[in-house]
């Protein structure tokens, strides 16, 4: 019999759910502790997406919504990296979905109250399925910072949202990537909801000067670690016992 279980999550390295400096968390963070239980097949299985859902420009946000081949405003960047598990094993076939504001800090979304302008050539969404070495790459526009209502008006650092499916539903990760050198990172309550300094820093994409020079686009490297799982075999037991 094989028992598969996800590595126990280390909440010291994760954001606090209830973090009143981020006002929206006050009414949305559950008050009770989460209930831990051993992984079952429901947690170690998960949807796996076929590469055929990805079309040619899905990972190029400068082209996938452009009208009449016009370019979006702003400077193009490359965001790339690898997805690995906690044992540093590359994860092939992981689906990454990203979304972001345009160069002026405006989302293509009717609920965005920011007065900055919509860019008709930039929707701000992309997706990709990782290669066999776990690597991914997006071409996009440097997103702008933007003001939002929190404790009065505050500013979000430049960021890209990431949603990732690995091999199991228990590995699901939703996060944000920030940009090296952005002074707004330190003041962001969403970033600061993570108490651990090293964990916080792991969300900052680093400027990749080698790629920036060879490809003539500023490149940022953002590596992602999804939960690992252990497999244990009990050879002396028969199936179903």
């Amino acid at each position, binding site marked *: 019999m094989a028992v598969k279980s996800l590595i126990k999550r280390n909440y010291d390295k994760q954001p606090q759910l209830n973090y009143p400096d981020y006002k929206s968390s006050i009414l*949305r963070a*559950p008050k009770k502790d989460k209930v831990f239980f051993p992984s079952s097949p*429901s947690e170690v299985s998960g949807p796996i997406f076929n590469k055929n859902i990805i079309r040619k420009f899905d990972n190029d946000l400068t082209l996938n919504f452009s009208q009449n081949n016009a370019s979006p405003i702003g400077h193009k960047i490359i965001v790339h990296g690898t997805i690995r598990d906690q044992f540093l094993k590359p994860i092939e076939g992981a689906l990454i979905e990203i979304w972001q504001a345009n160069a002026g800090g405006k989302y293509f979304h009717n609920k965005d109250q920011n007065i900055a302008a919509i860019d008709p050539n930039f929707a701000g969404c992309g997706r990709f399925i990782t290669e066999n070495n776990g690597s991914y790459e997006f071409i996009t526009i440097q997103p702008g910072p933007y003001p939002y209502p929190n404790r009065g008006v505050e500013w979000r650092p430049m960021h890209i949202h990431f949603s990732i499916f690995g091999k199991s539903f228990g590995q699901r990760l939703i996060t944000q990537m920030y940009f090296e050198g952005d002074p707004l990172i330190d003041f962001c309550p969403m970033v600061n909801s993570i108490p651990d300094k090293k964990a916080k820093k792991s*969300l900052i994409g680093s400027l990749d000067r080698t790629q920036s020079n060879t490809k003539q686009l500023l490149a940022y490297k953002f590596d992602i670690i999804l939960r690992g799982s252990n497999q244990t075999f009990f050879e002396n037991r028969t199936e179903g016992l």
Partner: protein
Amino acid sequence: MNYPKNIADETPFQTAGPFLHIGCLPNTININGVFQNDLGEKPFINKDTNDFISISGSVFDGSGQALDDVMLETWQSDENGVYTPDNGFARFVPNSISKKYKLSTIKPGSVQNFDGSLQSPHISFSISSRGINMNLNTRMYFEGDNLFKDPLLSMIKKSNNDVSSLIASKIDDTSFIFNIFLQGDKETIFLDV
């Protein structure tokens, strides 16, 4: 709790924010033509929809308000309790007027655990939104099913906790209501999966 040594830290979570539709459900906000279909529009592609059940409900915040900027994702087995990687996933948001979500799917079967015990039919939920720094996991079971032997429910009951927040109310054989409460007297049990 001891964590295994010499392994890398999992990347930290961050909130999905209020504009998650752009990346996760672009066609629902009229970003058309980028992705042909939104992911998880239908949990099962090759099943007879006449056999589908419907599950509906709302997600409530601590002030009792039903949210419309929340995203729900579900993962379930087929009718025989078998998980298949290309079926069983759905992703949806509540209707902006009624604030209710609706999921049409097949009723999952009982899933066999690694030790051979049977889990009662259930659907796994993941909930993401603005104000939720780390998406929340829970499970939905079905009123009317035999729930006495389910390992998770039994474990929670042993520590004297009420499991009713994990059980969808049965309206009739094909329709169920499952509300999720982020806070308050009826706060849903969330799981450290």
